[in-house]
């Protein structure tokens, strides 16, 4: 019997099978690549949701914040009101909407924790350096640098109130060095402007009493916070009203950021969104 031919044919069949297996392996690899590609494609969609929620929080909380990164300076723009309107009911409705109606539509899972913003104070963290707070229960507004090194370079402040001025007292600690201040105050009696350089570690104050005995107080520089953990800040801003209302526009020039400092502001709102095999869970941030 001629075995050589038999063996040769067997080899040919085996090689043919190897080719078929190789093609099958390639197709499997192609399918896996397509699946992982689908998962990767979902990530931009998740990022879009975080961006959308940031924009919604911006509109919902009614505090306009914008950041500007220049070559020689960084600026923070804030527009807000004192007392601030209570956004908590709308925020809680939004949380419920996102976790139920929206999640069902998008076939994803959403968890939004807004508890840090529903305790009476609106708060954001800017560049991990500054805290901005607006307490809508006691009508106080604060801008607090974290350290002496992060004290602002300049404040430009516009305060507008509808009140009728009865008494205006100012005590600014002007100096050759310190923070550059431009303060424009407007009420029904007109506008007063102050500009110069004030000391960041001394207390500069503006006190206004209105005809109806309501009051407004502005403190710049050294600000002491009372309470369980008494804290003292330099280069800070404090604004409070009693039975008065005011709109504030603040532009704050701050020292340049270090490379590790993030160029964003952060809401203390934790968002967890997952769809398919992809997910993201972090605090909501925005540049504005």
């Amino acid at each position, binding site marked *: 019997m*001629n075995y*050589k031919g038999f063996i040769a044919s067997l080899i*040919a069949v085996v*090689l043919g099978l190897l080719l078929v297996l190789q093609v099958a392996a390639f197709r499997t690899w192609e399918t896996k*690549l397509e699946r992982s590609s689908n998962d990767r*494609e979902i990530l931009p969609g998740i990022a*879009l949701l975080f961006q*959308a929620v940031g924009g919604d929080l911006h509109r919902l909380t009614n505090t306009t914040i914008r950041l500007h990164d220049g070559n020689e300076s960084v600026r923070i723009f804030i527009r807000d009101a004192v007392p601030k309107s209570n956004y908590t009911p709308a925020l809680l409705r939004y949380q419920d*909407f996102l976790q139920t109606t929206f999640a069902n*539509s998008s076939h994803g899972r959403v968890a939004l924790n807004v508890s840090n913003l529903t305790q009476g104070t609106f708060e954001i963290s800017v560049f991990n350096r500054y805290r901005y707070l607006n307490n809508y229960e006691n009508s106080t507004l604060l801008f607090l640098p974290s350290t002496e090194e992060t004290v602002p370079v300049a404040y430009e402040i516009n305060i507008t109130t509808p009140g009728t001025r009865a008494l205006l007292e100012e005590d600014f600690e002007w100096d050759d060095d310190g923070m550059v201040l431009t303060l424009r105050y407007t009420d029904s009696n007109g506008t007063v402007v102050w500009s110069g350089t004030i000391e960041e570690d001394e207390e500069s104050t503006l006190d206004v009493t209105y005809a109806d005995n309501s009051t407004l107080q502005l403190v710049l520089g050294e600000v002491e916070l009372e309470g369980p953990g008494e804290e003292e800040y330099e280069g800070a801003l404090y604004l409070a009203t009693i039975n008065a209302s005011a709109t504030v526009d603040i532009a704050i020039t701050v020292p340049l950021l270090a490379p590790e400092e993030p160029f964003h502001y952060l809401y203390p709102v934790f968002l967890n969104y997952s769809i398919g095999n992809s997910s993201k869970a972090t605090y909501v941030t925005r540049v504005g």
Partner: protein
Amino acid sequence: MKAFVFTFDAIFALLFFTLLLALLVVSIAQPEIPRSSYLRQLSHDFLAVAQQENAFVNSLQQGDGSPLRDLFRRLPPAVCMQVHLIPPVGNQTVIADPSCTGYAQELQATWLPLYYNNSNYRIRLESWYRTEVAAG
């Protein structure tokens, strides 16, 4: 020399051909990027630009959808998109590319939330490849 299927020469030829074919398949064949991936990327890009330009809020404020229709004009000619702005109650607003009619078989939908004027909207972006119009 005869085998039970092929001759010996033919077997060598087959062997050589098989090896060449295997090399060819591995080196040249690349997985085709699905059209759906491109459409999804475009949809995400559109939504990112629309958010950046505040087009959804502006469209609701102006009431005519023109900010979004302006964005549709920047799309590649082969792609159609349509935005549904769905309020919590009442009728939704549909803003469509006027040059697109009907849907194609492959339709992608992307959802985003939108808070506007004390209401929680859902945004639904639909995108598809433009179907070719039959000649004559």
